[in-house]
Every structure is written in C-alpha cells, then in structure tokens.
C-alpha cells in the first residue's frame, strides 16, 4: 500500500485562534486509588492517592514511566475503571458530564468492516442521533483531521497515521468538552507523530475543550501541554505539577528553542526522581 500524500488542513487549522471561548469542562480528582486484585496473587496498587485539578479548557499532559498506572488514572476519569478510594468531580456540577467525554486509545481501534465515515459516525449512532446529523458531523470531523479524501475508504486501506487520524476524528465527532488521550501516537513514526501533535494542539486551540494527554515522551508532553503532571513509577503518585513556560503558538522551530530544552530538563529531572532515585 502506498501512503497517500498528506491532505491539506482546512483554513482554520493552519492559523489556530488561541482565544476561542472555553467550552471545556474542569476535572477534579481527589485521593484517587485503584488496586487490582486477582486470586492467588499479590494485590497490585496501580494508582495511590492521586490529586489532580484541571481547569476548564486546559491542556494537561500526564507524564510517567511505562506501566506506572497513568492509563489507569485516565480510565478512572473516563468512568471505565472504578475508584477504590477518593472521588472524582467534573465542572461546577460535579457529576460526570453526559456525552461530553471522548477517549482516544493507544491504537486506532477502528471497526474493520466500516469505512472511515461510518467509523467516525459511530459515537453519534450509539447515542441515537439522526442519520443526516451523524453524516454532517462525521464529515466535518473527518475534514478537521485532514482526511476528507478518504471518507469512503476502509481501515485496511489506510496507513497507521491515517488510522490514528480517523480515531481522533471519531473522538471529536461528539464535540467533546473533555478529550482524554492515552499515548495515542506512541506507535507512529516520528514525523507522523509530530504532525499529529501539531494537529491536536490546533484542534484544542480551535475548540477550547479540556485535553488530558497521557504520554511517556517528555518532548511530546512539553510540546503539547500548558501544564505537565509527572507521576512516579507504580503505584502512581504525583511528583511534580509544572506549568510550562512556552508560547501559545507552537511550531517545529520550538523544538530547537532553548526554553523548550529547559522545560524538558525540568520534566526529565522529575521523571528520574519519580522513578525511584530519591523516592
């Protein structure tokens, strides 16, 4: 399969407006714990008393070593995993925002029997929306990730990067107020990954949603987020909460900038500390 040339982004994406009205929802996690128990084996404490407060419309990266429990934390926020202790609140009301949450997995996880359009429309279909509305929203989301030409193709006909874009479009189709991403671009090559990072940042700026991005890559966390939360090796605890002092407008040149290098070393130090050097 030959990779098709990267589609051009819609106009609003090349010049993101950082001043979009915040539609995001705030998240508050207090003393969250999660213990996995299995018969005949020692209990595994995945998350141990994590406190986290995320403002509406904020872009936060959760950084930690592989297998540290950061995915579990994200799944707890998504409601896919129960809390063994602690509590979880959203926005002002505190309850889980209905239909306002979207989740992007580590791999694309598309339905192989559906084309791109039907895959992207799936969340709206499951929520019982009308078919015309589903189609329009799906086409908009597909265009937003730059795949307008591939709407009728099936997952098997797409490259890994394109599949991940479809997965992103599927998350965006419900216009979520909280987007949770679990190492979404980890399996992609460096160029595709940076390209998707750029795109995600632009989408965040354009929509004003709250984004929680789990990653083990320091560079990705620093490039994407407004604030980084560094977790320890399992069980996950917060070692550092750090607001990144970087411009709102970020591009490839930033990766070579001295400020970027300084922020990366701050995160690297915290990651080392959390990895058991001085715990």
């Amino acid at each position, binding site marked *: *399969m*030959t990779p098709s040339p990267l589609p051009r982004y819609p106009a609003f994406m090349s010049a993101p407006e950082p001043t979009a009205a915040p539609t995001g929802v705030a998240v508050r996690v207090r003393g969250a714990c999660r213990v996995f128990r299995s018969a005949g084996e020692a209990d595994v404490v995945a998350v141990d008393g994590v406190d986290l407060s995320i403002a509406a419309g904020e872009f936060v990266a959760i950084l930690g070593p592989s297998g540290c429990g950061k995915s579990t934390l994200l*799944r707890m926020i*998504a*409601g*896919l995993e129960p809390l063994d202790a602690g509590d979880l609140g959203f926005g002002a009301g505190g309850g889980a925002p209905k*239909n306002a*949450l*979207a*989740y992007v*997995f*580590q*791999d694309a*996880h598309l*339905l*192989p*029997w559906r*084309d791109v359009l039907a895959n992207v429309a*799936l*969340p709206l*279909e*499951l*929520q019982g929306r009308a078919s015309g509305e589903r189609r329009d929203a799906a086409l908009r989301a597909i265009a937003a990730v730059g795949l307008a030409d591939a709407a009728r*193709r*099936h997952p*098997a*006909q797409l490259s890994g990067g394109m599949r991940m874009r479809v997965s992103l479009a599927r998350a965006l189709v*419900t216009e979520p107020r909280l987007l949770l991403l679990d190492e979404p671009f980890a399996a992609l090559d460096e160029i595709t990954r940076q390209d998707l990072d750029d795109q995600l940042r632009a989408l965040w700026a354009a929509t004003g949603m709250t984004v929680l991005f789990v990653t083990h890559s320091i560079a990705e966390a620093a490039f994407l987020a407004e604030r980084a939360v560094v977790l320890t090796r399992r069980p996950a605890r917060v070692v550092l909460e750090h607001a990144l002092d970087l411009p709102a407008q970020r591009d490839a040149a930033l990766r070579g900038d001295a400020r970027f290098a300084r922020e990366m070393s701050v995160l690297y130090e915290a990651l080392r500390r959390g990895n058991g050097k001085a715990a």
Partner: protein
Amino acid sequence: MKPRFVETFVPPAATFLLTTAAAEFGIRAAGVSPLLLPTPSAVARAALQHAPTLLPALAMTAQAVAIGLALSIALGLLVAIALSTSRWVERAFYPYAIFFQIVPIVAIAPLLVIWFGYGMRAVVAAAFIVSVFPVIANSLAGLLSVDPALRDLFRLYGASGFARLWKLSLPWALPNVLTGLRIAAGLAVIGAIVGEFVGGGGLGVVVLEAMRQQRTDLVFAAVLHAAALGLALFAAVNATSHFALRRWHTQETEP
C-alpha cells in the same frame, strides 16, 4: 485476468487428468476385478446410466444437508451468543455442547429414526447434530475475542446491549463464524449420508443398494456425487467469506 484463470484452473485439471488416466490404465493392466475397484471409465458409465436414480437422490441429500446446515447456523449462533453472555453460563453449559462433537453419529442414528421416524426428519437431525458443534465453538471464540478497547468505546457512548451485539460482537465474530461454517458444511454431508443409511432416502440408500447388488462402480458414482455436494458447499462458504470480508483486508485495488 487470463493468466490468473490459467494459474488457478490448469494445475488441478492436469492433476485430475493424469491421476484418472493412471488409474484407468493401472487397473486395466493389473487386471483388478471390477467388483473390487472399477476403472474410472466404468464409474463414469455407471453415473450416466444411473443418472435418473443418482440425480434425484443427490437432490434429496442436498435438501437434507441444506436444512441441517441452516439449523446448525441458526441454533449454533444462538447458543454461542447465549454462552458468550457470561463466564458462568459458559462454564455451566459449554461442556455439554461438546457432546455434539464427540457423539458417534453412526451409533445414535438408529435412535434418531426411533424419535423422528424414517425419512427426511431423521436425516436432517443427523446432519444437524454433527455440524452444529463447529459453529458453536468457532462463533463463541469469535464473540469472546472482541477487542476490549472497542467494548470500552461502546460503553463510553452508552450503547445498549443490542447495539453491542449487533454492531460490535456479531460483525467481529463473522470471520470465525464463517470458519465454523466451512467445517460444518463438510460434516453435514457426512451426517446426512449416515442418517440415510438408517433413515432411508438420498445418496445413502443408493450406496446401500449398489453394495447389495455388488455394483462397486455405482457405489463409486454415488460417493462422487456426495463429494461434489460437499465441494459445492465448501465453495459457497468460501465465496460468501470472500464477499463478506473483502473490505477487511488490504485490497489489491488501491485508489
């Protein structure tokens, strides 16, 4: 298009012609009694001569196989769906589904006649019993192998149980269901012939009659008809499979 047709059909056709010719001349040269092993030409003559018996018998067997197989698909899928709903249901009932796998169909065929009487119904039951297990086992494996991330996705958007089954589990299990069906198709023919030995009708009876009259050539002709039936079903399942799953895999036609 043309070279592919040649690649697909010429080698097996050549094999067929060579082995048939070898059998014809080998049997003649060795002077084997036609009671033990008839020549291919004698089998072909018997098939032509007895076509008025063989073809209706084939149609009858095919009908029993088709009904038995349809029952296997429908009931096998329902059982697999029921077993996939919970670990406890699976643990409680799956060991008994294996009964269908291990039951010696020859031994219980007389029982089927006692229950269903002579004729089509006993034959259909025999075809069903031997072919249902592969459908259950393969469908269940498919239903249980659904990607956990996709289950999470459906949960996240509040999908109903019906939507999860219809839009996720069943399509996900389709390749496995078709694999089960491919195995079931061949078994259903065996089950039907054994059923006919006891319950009467179809190619099974032609084989029995020919054996009594020591018409080995006619036995061979009937067996070939049964084999052709199995082959046709296998090809039908393969075609369905190709049609249903062609989008799942990388296509040769890149836009």
